[in-house]
């Protein structure tokens, strides 16, 4: 899968059909609701997880894909596991372990909120192409300069990966040993070349864009159509439900 496609999984589910801008707003609202939920309301986090699982099912995203993509939060996981041993406070006994109770809650808080946040973001990423996300942000009046930088970062990341892949294939074709650390030397030596080649290719890409009238502004707003009331209400259903749960948990906890 090329970086241009990102995490997008082509499909035609109701979640896919929602306009990118409403999905972005829904994601932000949903994440805020999760963050605002008191950590003691364990049932609320269960409800959020069910809600997100429902969305994944609706978008036909397989569980294995979600789990492998969730690895991005592993640094937070390590921190969450460390909290019970690092934070001071009244101790509780779990089998042969003695851990701190506030630390346990802090770890749980981080673990639950980070995981749910990542999953919610994956719902957006799996059902919206990168260009759609950019177009949606443009529709939401995100500053032009940020969009341009993001669009070019993605474009050039793709070019660089393509260069590295080609050079690696060319090395393999000349009997390079691609195993583990052995290729590090060749890679290090070729990094400078990768930079120059990507730079020159970037220049050719720029020329091709300039030849078609590019003046520093990508026509990103070409794609996304405005979203109607139906789209907004459909997309905001999940965050509204989450906000309800959060409010309930905060008041009655």
């Amino acid at each position, binding site marked *: 899968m*090329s970086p*241009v*496609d990102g995490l997008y999984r082509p499909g035609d589910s109701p979640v896919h059909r929602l306009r990118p801008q409403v999905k972005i707003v829904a994601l932000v609202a949903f994440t805020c609701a999760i963050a605002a939920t008191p950590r003691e309301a364990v049932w609320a986090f269960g409800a959020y997880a069910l809600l997100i699982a429902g969305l994944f099912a609706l978008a036909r995203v397989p569980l294995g894909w979600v789990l492998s993509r969730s690895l991005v939060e592993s640094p937070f996981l390590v921190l969450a596991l460390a909290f019970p041993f690092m934070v001071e406070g009244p101790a509780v006994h779990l089998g042969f372990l003695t851990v701190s109770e506030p630390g346990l809650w802090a770890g749980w808080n981080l673990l639950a909120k980070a995981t749910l946040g990542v999953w919610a973001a994956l719902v957006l990423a799996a059902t919206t*192409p*990168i*260009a759609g996300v950019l177009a949606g942000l443009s529709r939401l009046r995100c500053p032009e300069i940020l969009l341009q930088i993001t669009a070019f970062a993605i*474009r050039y990341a793709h070019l660089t990966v*393509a260069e590295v892949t080609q050079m690696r294939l060319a090395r393999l074709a000349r009997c390079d040993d691609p195993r583990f650390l052995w290729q590090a030397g060749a890679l290090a030596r070729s990094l400078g070349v990768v930079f120059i080649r990507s730079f020159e*290719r970037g220049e*050719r*890409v720029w*020329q*091709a*864009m*300039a*030849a*078609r*009238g*590019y*003046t520093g502004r990508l*026509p990103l707003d*070409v*794609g996304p159509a405005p979203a109607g009331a139906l789209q907004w209400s459909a997309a905001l259903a999940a965050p509204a439900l989450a906000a309800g749960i959060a409010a309930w948990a905060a008041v009655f906890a």
Partner: protein
Amino acid sequence: MSALQISGLEHVYPDGHRALDGVDLEVREGERVAILGPNGAGKTTLMLHLAGLLTATAGTVSVGEVKVERKTLAEIRRRVGIVFQSPDDQLFMPTVADDVGFGPANLGLRGPELAARVAAALADVGLSDLADRPPHHLSVGQQRRAALAGVLAMRPDIVVCDEPSANLDPAARRDLAAILQATAPTLLLVTHDLPYALQLCERAVILDAGRVAADGPTAEILADTELLQRHRLELPFGFSLETALAAMRA
């Protein structure tokens, strides 16, 4: 009426390499001209100057009555459509239709007007079915046609193609020739594929060491074996100019 006027064009790269050394060339409206020359003759540099993508060391380029300079760049780039050699460098939007729409969108077209332009350009190159596919999933022949559609969508006065036949199989090569014949009113074909030049262009210019070394009817230039040899050009093995010309007359 002259579609393109190049006079005394010189280009020296920052490393001192003199790629163009005083090029004079005039192309009339509706003319199809092949720019022939060995590798490193300055063909691509010349092409980049036509859209104002490089700044000339000396000399001028005019498209129609508009001179290439900083304040006319937008108009020049609408008038001159360049199809680059590598589709990978040119196609970058997520779908073929988005990419074809990139140029017209830069011209300020939006909504149904833009969609109509894109649809017409895709129909011209026979890619209407693939409008929603990502360009990097197409074959090289299709990619080159998509790149051409991206240029045609801007309704240029002159179409410039850099090595359009490179890496194409014979059928894709023939398809592209037919499309170029039907869609490009004034065509500049930058190539060292001599039979392709003969097929598409009635006039040929040999560029060597940054200068125009010969200019005349394509058939006459290709018949001059000595001239071709002097400029490191030659017809493919087994190619018969007489047979080709007879086939073209038929």
